[in-house]
């Protein structure tokens, strides 16, 4: 029976070609849209985690309470804590970071102030086995020069350096506040420039080696935060919830305001509501798109049924039962839907994979605060759900169309068939 219907569909292209084309295109669009939305949300997680939050972040209770990271609120004596984290949560890699603000003072030939600017300094591990060169994609972001090879060397944002009129190799002095709130003053050398693609960072960012900042700020082996990243790179909504709860239960903060507390990505910077809104908006877009595609595909099913009104009449006149005719109509629709879904999924995966691997550069569109949140390249993400995302609109919608249009078969009166068919 199936092979009979299949042959019929192949031989009578008017029955199969147009519906198959519409379903394939519709499913391809749904598959691509699903990958695009997954990529957009994933991109938001990636850029936020990389620069600001990690997948989880360990801070002091005092820093969380003050909602700021500064040397005087830093975690101190981190060796045992890092060992504990690596032992208890091996699925994540752990990295100390120091964030602080400082006055950048560039000297003239006589060693006196030539110009000054306030700088946002990020100190990350660049030289030890916990190096974040890979995590932060520093080699690729390097616009000129090289990465620091000693604690007294710095990277500077290219835009910032141009604005200050500095050159690679120039000495600079940083003036900030140390762990006790005292003066921290040190000389450093610029060895490389970075392009962040993030406006706020491009205008004021310096990156230095962790040990240089620890010495400069009298932090010992302390840091303003410890970032945790899943080794598999994947993050989804509230993924680390259980391990965060477990860690915080081991470190109740009521006794020591400078004790550690772990926050997952969504718990930081009011991101929970931001991500919820973003995911909701994206879901609405996806659902509306599926509905529209469903209506188009349903219409295809309807058109197909109506176009074959005479054929149904002849088949009824020749003695086929209404149930048989209706059944074959539904089965044909299912076959076309399945074929269209397979072709459409394959078609949709091609641009989805391209968007995942290459992406679209939107640097020019990213300005102001948007630049802090979004990556400078739109990327899709193909996940297992992408492969099945076209099933519902691709199979159910034309089937529903056939179900409705085929109901007319039962309303037809066999005794009037010849009149209707003008035989």
């Amino acid at each position, binding site marked *: 029976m199936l092979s009979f219907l299949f042959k019929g569909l192949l031989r009578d292209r008017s029955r199969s070609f147009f519906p198959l084309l519409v379903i394939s295109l519709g499913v391809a669009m749904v598959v691509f849209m699903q990958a695009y939305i997954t990529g957009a949300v994933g991109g938001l997680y990636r850029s936020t985690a990389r620069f600001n939050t990690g997948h989880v972040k360990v801070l002091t209770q005092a820093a969380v309470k003050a909602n700021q990271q500064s040397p005087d609120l830093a975690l101190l004596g981190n060796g045992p804590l890092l060992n504990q984290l690596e032992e208890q949560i091996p699925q994540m890699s752990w990295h100390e970071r120091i964030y602080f603000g400082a*006055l950048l003072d560039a*000297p003239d030939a006589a060693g*006196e*102030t030539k110009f*000054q600017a306030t700088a946002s300094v990020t100190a990350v591990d660049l030289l030890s086995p916990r190096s974040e060169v890979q995590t932060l994609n520093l080699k690729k972001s390097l616009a000129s020069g090289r990465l620091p090879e000693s604690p007294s060397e710095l990277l500077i944002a290219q835009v910032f350096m141009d604005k200050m009129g500095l050159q690679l190799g120039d000495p600079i002095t940083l003036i900030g506040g140390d762990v006790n709130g005292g*003066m921290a003053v040190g000389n450093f050398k610029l060895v490389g420039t970075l392009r962040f693609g993030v406006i706020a960072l491009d205008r004021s960012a310096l990156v230095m080696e962790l040990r240089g900042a620890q010495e400069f700020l*009298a932090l010992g082996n302390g840091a303003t935060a410890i970032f945790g990243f899943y080794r598999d790179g994947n993050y989804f909504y509230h993924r680390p919830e259980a391990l965060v709860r477990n860690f915080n239960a081991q470190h109740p903060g009521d006794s020591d305001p400078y004790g550690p507390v772990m926050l997952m990505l969504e718990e930081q910077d009011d991101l929970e509501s931001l991500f919820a809104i973003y995911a909701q908006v994206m879901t609405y877009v996806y659902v509306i798109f599926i509905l529209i595609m469903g209506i188009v595909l349903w219409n295809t099913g309807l058109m197909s049924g109506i176009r074959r009104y005479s054929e149904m009449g002849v088949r009824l006149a020749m003695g086929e039962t209404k149930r048989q005719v209706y059944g074959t109509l539904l089965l044909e629709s299912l076959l076309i839907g399945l074929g269209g879904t397979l072709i459409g999924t394959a078609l949709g995966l091609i641009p989805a994979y391209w968007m995942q691997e290459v992406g679209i550069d939107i640097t020019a569109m990213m300005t102001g605060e948007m630049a802090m949140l979004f990556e400078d390249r739109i990327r899709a993400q193909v996940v297992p759900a992408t492969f099945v995302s076209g099933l519902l609109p691709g199979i159910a919608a034309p089937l529903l169309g056939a179900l409705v249009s085929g109901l007319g078969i039962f309303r037809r009166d066999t005794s009037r068939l010849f009149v209707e068919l003008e035989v």
Partner: protein
Amino acid sequence: MKIMILLSLWLLTFTSLKAAPEAMSIVRKMDQSLNSKNQVITSTMVIHGKRATRSIESKSWILGKDQSFTEYLAPARERGTKMLKLGDQLWIYYPSADRVVNISGHMLRREVMGSDMSYEDMMERRPREELYEALLEGEEEIQGRPVYRILLSAQVPDVAYQKIRLWVDKERYVPLRQELFAASGKLLKVLETLEVMQTTKGWYPQRMRFKDVLKSGQGTEFTVEELLFDQEIPESRFHKGQLRR
């Protein structure tokens, strides 16, 4: 009836006219006891930070309202740091970096050594009667001492605080409490005099507590260990070359 109204208006006008010079004369007397042709001050600043309390010793040479030189004596991390103020310019020498850094513009609003005092607070030596208009708001009692409550409103644009409320000891003409306000009316800092000392020129706040109300922590205590007026200070003390010596 008309006579009564006119009399009341005349009395009101007379009262307000009389209040302004009285308030200003209090401020003038206060300025006289705080300032002199030159001063040499040895002081200790105790900074109650978020995590630790630090004590910083320094010695300052002050000439008039435009020149001052400060050298930090302790602790080791700050020892050898020197500050030179000439007019509205400030240079700081940091021995750890062997650098002379010019602090100007908005940088002057930054805190000194992590304390509750800004560079602007430290630099301001001009008598307040030159900068503010005074209004006597009332008379009260603070720390068991009768005081005048005076509101100062800035008359020049280049002041750090647009309004200052002062509580000035009625007998000693020393400020026992000061509230410093931004142009918006927001309270920025509170200065309390905890102890006073008698000098050759009158009374002087010996121990004060500065509290930046926008900062956490318990404020900064500033204690005058030694205060000498009208000393011989060589002009060379206020040369930039002194910073690296």
